[in-house]
């Protein structure tokens, strides 16, 4: 089962929930995939050993100017201004290229070969308690994260329990991380900013047809804005984590709440039990994201 932890707003506790959930599940088939490739943080908490890394690149065009007749067909088909003719010279802008291969297909002279642009890397390692972490790391200066996120997700084995840590926002990177998940667990912060961005993510998940539940992080004592929103939307709240300065301090130095606060361990165990049940139900009734 693939469970993606998302939020819309940044800094609500996606990574905290992901890594503590992973550490509290007593099974040996738990894998974590950090898809916040612009700013991956799960490795700070999971601390994997024996890390192996692979570069990830995408195809970009390389022009053989000996064969090119400057017909301009490639410039015309490219929607991304990645190829252009200036003063009888053909130029490519690899950082703009979306790797659609349109230029290659349209070229009648076979003048376009394959070159590569490095997007970043995918790393993988296992920590001493057996948690297997795969994470993407976007090269600084690279704009396009979705193809790298997709490479991280290619490594998911859906037979076990895969926890996917999504990037913030509701645009392409978050969508890439959320699509084809069995379940989305949204980490909500009970503030006006948190609620606004939660609602945007819920709308996106309706489009993606991924079943959704909410956990409230840094919850107030009384039921508040997230609860009334969830009730109106018919979305279940699976857990509430109270605000705690101690918890904030543990997270700030890369510690795990389930190791250092027994009350948090109980809350995460409860969360996993409910989550496992919900996802199993969704999978059985066929209510799954495709």
């Amino acid at each position, binding site marked *: 089962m693939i469970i993606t932890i998302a939020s*819309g*707003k*940044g*800094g*609500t506790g996606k*990574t905290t929930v992901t890594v503590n959930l992973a550490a509290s599940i007593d099974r040996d088939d738990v894998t974590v995939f950090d898809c*916040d490739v*612009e*700013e991956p*943080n799960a490795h*700070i908490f999971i601390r994997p050993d024996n890390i192996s890394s692979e570069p990830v690149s995408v195809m970009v065009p390389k022009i053989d100017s000996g064969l090119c007749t400057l017909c301009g067909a490639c410039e015309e*088909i490219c*929607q*991304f201004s990645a190829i252009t003719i200036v003063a009888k010279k053909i130029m490519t802008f690899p950082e703009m290229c*979306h*790797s*659609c*291969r*349109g230029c290659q*297909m*349209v070229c009648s002279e076979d003048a376009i070969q394959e070159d590569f642009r490095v997007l970043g890397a995918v790393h993988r390692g296992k920590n001493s308690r057996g948690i297997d972490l795969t994470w993407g790391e*976007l090269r*600084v*200066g*690279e*704009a*396009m*994260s979705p193809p790298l996120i997709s490479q991280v997700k290619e490594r998911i084995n859906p037979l076990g329990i895969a926890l996917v840590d999504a*990037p*913030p*926002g*509701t*645009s*392409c*990177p*978050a*969508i890439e991380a959320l*699509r084809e998940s069995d379940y989305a667990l949204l980490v909500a*912060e009970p*503030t*006006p*900013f948190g609620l*606004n*961005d939660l609602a*945007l993510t819920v*709308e*996106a998940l309706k*489009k*993606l047809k991924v079943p959704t539940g909410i956990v409230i992080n840094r919850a107030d004592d009384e039921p508040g804005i997230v609860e009334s929103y969830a009730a109106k939307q018919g979305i279940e709240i699976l857990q509430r984590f109270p605000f705690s*300065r101690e918890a*904030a*301090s543990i*997270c*700030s*130095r*890369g510690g795990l709440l389930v190791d250092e606060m027994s009350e948090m361990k109980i809350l995460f165990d409860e969360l996993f039990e409910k989550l496992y049940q919900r996802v199993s139900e969704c999978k059985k009734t066929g209510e799954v994201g495709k």
Partner: protein
Amino acid sequence: MKELTIISGKGGTGKTSVTASFATLASSRIVVDADVDAANLFLTLEHDTIASSHFKGGSKAEVQADKCSQCGDCRDRCQFDAISEDFIIDSISCEGCGVCAWFCPEKAITFERKVCGEKFISDTPWGPMIHARLGIAEENSGLLVSQLRQEARQMAKEKKIPLIITDGPPGIGCPVIAAVTNADALLIVTEPTLSGLHDMERVKGLADQMKIPTMVCINKADLNPEMTRRIQQFATENNIRFVGEIPFDRGVIDAMKAGQSLVQFSHGPASRAVVQIWEQVQQFFSSTPERIM
């Protein structure tokens, strides 16, 4: 005219709270919300929207079933697995390259630019605000950010406004690159955590590639004094101007709940710290060269 962009790397460190405060403290400014897929600035600055316009991003392909001969050429060519076996194009997978439409022998695929968001110009009691709402699950956020900043520059020129403050998105990818390109200075708002430091190092790498002078302030600095020290040290070693610390203060969330900027709502410790940081930012800013318009 000068442009200040506020970024963080890590999400949720307090960019928008700091931006909203600067936007109420500055004597003459335009404020831009460049976090277009999770925009929050409008929730904290009282405003009247005076103009809105469609944002057209890239084009999307659509198969016209009555013309389609189901030859499969489009499916073979699509690099994004966006076309199903029964020839329906998934708009979320479609990258907008138009290759399918270009080659379709039956000319059965339309390829048109789609409205994928709204742009707004609003008046606040402290000056104009330029913001947007990207449609649900839409792309081209980088293009939208570039357009918002372009509109702000145009307005600054016309109205002779000397400063543009831009609230940037989290991360280091496409919309962040669009939000920081050609800014005169950056302010990184970080938090005293290992994640905050890690993410700030990456965002500083981006600032260096673009050769933009950078400042940093630490929000909730007292939550981990040791990490706060490490971030200050990183700043000193990496030519980042340290402009101050903001203590943890419930007033920040109370201001948000009241729909006001922190400095407008509260005179507590966090609010006073932000006022001081604003002084430091202005000082640093006056040392960067003026741009010729």
